[in-house]
């Protein structure tokens, strides 16, 4: 029996395995083997369809410029030139000249060596405009040429700005360079992944932090006739399998919008982290924003954000604000916050007050009062019973000695 007869017997068409236990063997919804296969349009024809030009065999370049007056929703791209110098999200105003926005469209999201970025979108600021270069593969063959064409922009970039690029686009491009046996300079560039600050500030406020959500909530931008990202792999598959250029333009437009959204999102996010007003207006989580600043060792910024949001903080936020006040020497503000929290019997605040009265005010009686309230509060949460009991015993002894 030939291989194909046995194969046919073991794997009957239209079904999973003959053993009934294996995974369905045709997971790809776009396979449609019955679809007529047209001759694939040549590179020129594809270039015409998407409004680009053939720059190497198998590679189409779509280049465009967008003036800084362009608005992506509420935000004008000109905001890019006004990014402050605080560097809250890893970029300062001085960096803006060498930013490279990068976004890929791929054959899938599985990762690993079997995923191909067939469209590489790049954008950078050039005087009073944003230059967008999109490199499209017309088949598998052009990949080496595509990486070659992209090379100058990739290596000239000072900062590579992506959305989820740290874990997806950049490693993917590194992998593709390795597979094509080319050196890749991307990992050496400073990485600015806008997903991370977005998630910090809004992760607990929004249902998800996808780029589409961020652009709606922060830019007020809603795409018209956008091709959903999930359909992207099928479009390229239709091109190389069936010569179908149908939705190719929409993929290119989708990618271009992603790039422009990132360009607008960067100043918008920088504002959220730089200015408490912007944070309040966009509904950012003040404690999360403060922690972001603390990770960057910027305590003043953290304090500024929490102070501005003082009336909206939850107990964790208030405790953190009190902690920062105390570190900054604002003992009165810290005490005020702890007293507010103590009224709600928040254990950590009771503990702080007990310590404060024991060690700073040398007032064991008041401290004992707080420690006993702490014991009761802790009994409700069954935490640290031994530690608190010990504190109470010690304070009781001190109080006895003092009286």
């Amino acid at each position, binding site marked *: 029996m030939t291989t194909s007869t*046995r194969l046919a017997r073991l794997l009957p068409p239209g079904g999973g395995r003959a053993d009934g236990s294996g995974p369905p063997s045709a997971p*790809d919804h776009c*396979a449609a083997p019955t679809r007529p296969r047209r001759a694939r349009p040549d590179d020129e024809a594809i270039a015409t369809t998407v409004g680009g030009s053939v720059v190497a065999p198998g590679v189409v370049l779509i280049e465009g410029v967008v003036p800084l007056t362009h608005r992506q929703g509420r935000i004008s791209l000109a905001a890019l030139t006004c990014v402050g110098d605080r560097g809250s999200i890893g970029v300062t105003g001085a960096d803006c000249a060498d930013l490279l926005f990068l976004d890929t469209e791929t054959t*899938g999201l*599985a990762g690993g*060596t079997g*995923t191909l970025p067939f469209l590489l979108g790049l954008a950078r600021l050039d005087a009073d405009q944003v230059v967008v270069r999109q490199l499209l593969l017309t088949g598998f063959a052009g990949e080496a040429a595509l990486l070659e064409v992209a090379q100058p922009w990739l290596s000239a970039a000072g900062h590579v700005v992506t959305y989820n690029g740290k874990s997806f686009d950049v490693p993917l491009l590194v992998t593709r360079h*390795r597979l094509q046996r080319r050196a890749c300079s991307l990992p050496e560039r400073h990485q600015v992944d806008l997903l991370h600050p977005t998630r910090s500030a809004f992760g607990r406020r929004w249902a998800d932090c996808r780029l589409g959500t961020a652009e709606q909530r922060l830019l007020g931008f809603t795409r018209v006739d956008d091709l959903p990202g999930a359909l992207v792999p099928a479009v390229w598959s239709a091109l190389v399998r069936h010569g179908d250029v149908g939705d190719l333009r929409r993929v290119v437009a989708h990618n271009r919008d992603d790039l422009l959204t990132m360009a607008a999102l960067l100043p918008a996010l920088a504002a959220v982290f730089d200015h408490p007003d912007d944070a309040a207006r966009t509904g950012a989580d003040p404690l999360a924003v403060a922690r972001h600043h603390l990770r960057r060792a910027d305590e003043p910024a953290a304090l500024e954000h929490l102070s501005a949001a003082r009336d909206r903080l939850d107990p964790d936020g208030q405790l953190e604000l009190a902690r920062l006040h105390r570190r900054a020497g604002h003992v009165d503000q810290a005490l005020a916050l702890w007293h507010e929290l103590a009224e709600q019997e928040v254990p950590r605040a009771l503990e702080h007050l007990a310590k404060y009265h024991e060690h700073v005010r040398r007032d064991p009686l008041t401290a004992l009062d707080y420690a006993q309230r702490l014991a009761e509060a802790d009994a409700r949460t069954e935490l640290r019973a031994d530690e608190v009991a010990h504190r109470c015993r010690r304070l009781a002894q001190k109080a006895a000695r003092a009286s």
Partner: protein
Amino acid sequence: MTQPAVDRFFDQSVATDDHDAAPQASPPGVEPLLASLTRRYADRITAQVVIPEQLGRYADLPPGLEPRLASAVAARGIARLYSHQAAAWESVTSGRHTVVVTPTASGKTLCYNLPVLQAVLQRGSRALYLFPTKALAQDQVAELLELNEAGGLGVRAYTFDGDTPGDARAAVRTKGDVVVSNPDMLHVGVLPHHTKWAQFFESLEYVVIDEVHTYRGVFGSHLANVLRRLRRVCQFYGSSPTFVMSSATIANPAELAEQLIGAPVHAITDNGAPAGRKHLLLWNPPVVNADLGLRASARSQTTLVTKEAIRRGLQSIVFANTRLQVEVLTKYLKDTFDADPRRPARVHAYRGGYLPTQRRATETALRRGELDCVVSTSALELGVDIGALDVAVLNGYPGTVAATWQRLGRAGRRNQTALGVLIGSSEPLDQFIVRNPQFFLDASPEHARIAPDQLLILLDHVRCAAFELPFRDGETFGGEDLPTLLHYLAEQGLLHHEGGQWHWMADSYPANAVSLRSVAEGNFTVIDVTDGRQDVIAEVDYSAAALTLYEGAIYLVQAQPWQVERLDWEGRKAFVTQTDADYFTDAIDYTRLKVLDVVDSARGPAAATAHGDVHLVRRVPGYKKIRYYTHENVGYGFIHLPDHEMHTTAAWWQADPEALAAAIPDRWQALDGFLGAAHAMHHVAALLMMSERGDLGRSVGDTDPETGSWSATIDVEGRGNAQTFAGDAIDPGALHTFCPTVYLYDNYPGGVGLSAPLYDLRETVVAQAGSLIASCGCSFGCPACVGPILAAEERRAPSPGATAAMSPKESARRVLDQLSGGPS
């Protein structure tokens, strides 16, 4: 010191290291125990063998050994090598793929650690170590680190497996000189991301595969394909690593190794490690009911022998075949020896599922002689370092000759006599072994068989390989026609052919969908949830689960009934509650087999044998409720499990209808005979093929549409029943032609190559089955020879026309006569 210090190799610990120094006095020796057992239980001992002492053979440390490495080795107390270690050095450093065959505890790790460390130190090479389990991998890293420290070598060895934290992975990839992993991780976590490992693959010089004998059947076939992918990826990075393998004693180590790596392999089989004298007893529990063929349990004998050994101050290891048996035996031994909780435990259990720290503690206690006894599953059969013990007791036959010797090898000190006792359970295979000691003692260890070109397995890995690197036209992968497979995958929409290459095109990660361990793995746990409990009360083989753990089933443990409330098939769990039902349940299963293609056949005067491709459908439509004692049918339930359907390969034996009618005139009796013969043949075949019994399936029936289409099963009364696939009972007497056939099929879709060798052994299978039945001590046939018969012969009235009732044993014997009279 006149005796050169070769005492402590890494998995051969004779405690001479100061920090490991055993406080134990010189053990008393096993001779008094042996004398006592042979005197008191002579009737239970079916064979006694002495395996003579073997003197060690040595060689000098290789002259080219890197000085730092030489001093590290010296610091570990090693001044010279065993001859096989030196031979391995010679072979491996000359770049030959090498497999070293070593019994337990004979210094095998040095065979690969020396050349690997040499290459790391001299050339900055990298090495990949693959172990079948995570536990072994961790042992290995610990051992490398000890050597590393002893010599200040600065070699970085890391494990990379599912437990490696995400933030440590990058360091392992870029900094690890030796990466220790397992086949599953290589398959799913390394190869599909090979670009992240680029530097590692570029300088990969050695791939070490330990315990290759464990890679047989489906698992081995998968591993061979993973290694094909590994070699392909290495080629991409311009490296061509040398494979160094180790194996326990099997019949075909070189052949297996060559099949696994797809290249010629040099086998080093001559072991130079010294071994003390060893006595081996084969032990059959005493008969307690001759009519029913019932013997005392193996467990009772195991505890008897082990207690005796412990009382005499001997260090013992007990091997049991399931985790549950381990627990039960441990409890019985602890009840005797660890009754006082204030004193340190003398008996430990050891099995998978325990925490690594617990296992390490047991290993250390064993090495130091602080434990009197350990009760283990096969987990201690592999190369975990526990030192050498005095007595090994095997509670039941492990299933293969190779595993038996491997387990017995745990007993044996260099200058002391050791004792091994193999205790047969009531399982047919066990009974066969202990009753035919010569068969076991003469048996060469089994062949480990793999089928790397098994079409479905191959296709799985072609898929994974295509994801990793596009196939080029003209490239080969395995022995099948690659373009056909690639075209198939392209039709499925997974690949796209362009520019002479086949590119991965789908949004999926194929390795995730391919499990290297066969589907038939994963025992079911039975969990008692009565009154909110969560106690595991039993484990059930995958192959038996459909027939015993369906919802509504009465599941018996020690004759106590539980009812299955819910079966979580995916999670491999059955939830049961205690019940006092006065009935038990019996699943009805039909197997329909259709022969698709006869590859080869042999015809004799009274029988025909063949092998080929078959299509098989197994259905478990329902179950009967049977009242105790009266055996009346008191109800029926439906079972909602999908039909199990597969194409596979089979070997089959068919009697000539006329000759059969002459030998056994009554067709009901002939049917019983076939069922009994099939039972015996199944067990013998599993033994001959070095496979688990679940790897082979059996069926009795007639699949020829011209003579009838029926299959037969044994009902709870031990009586053969024939039915059509729709489930209608048929009367064999009413069939025009009665042509029963025994099928033994490869229980894996597409087959893993068991059928052709089984066909080659067709006469041996029948002959050995005949001798299994003939040598059984029962009168009429019993579970240990012809399978479950209960009270069949008493209950059945002789069929009309039959002159006398024939026992199932007799009818099976006559059927086997027919089958052996066949092919000449």
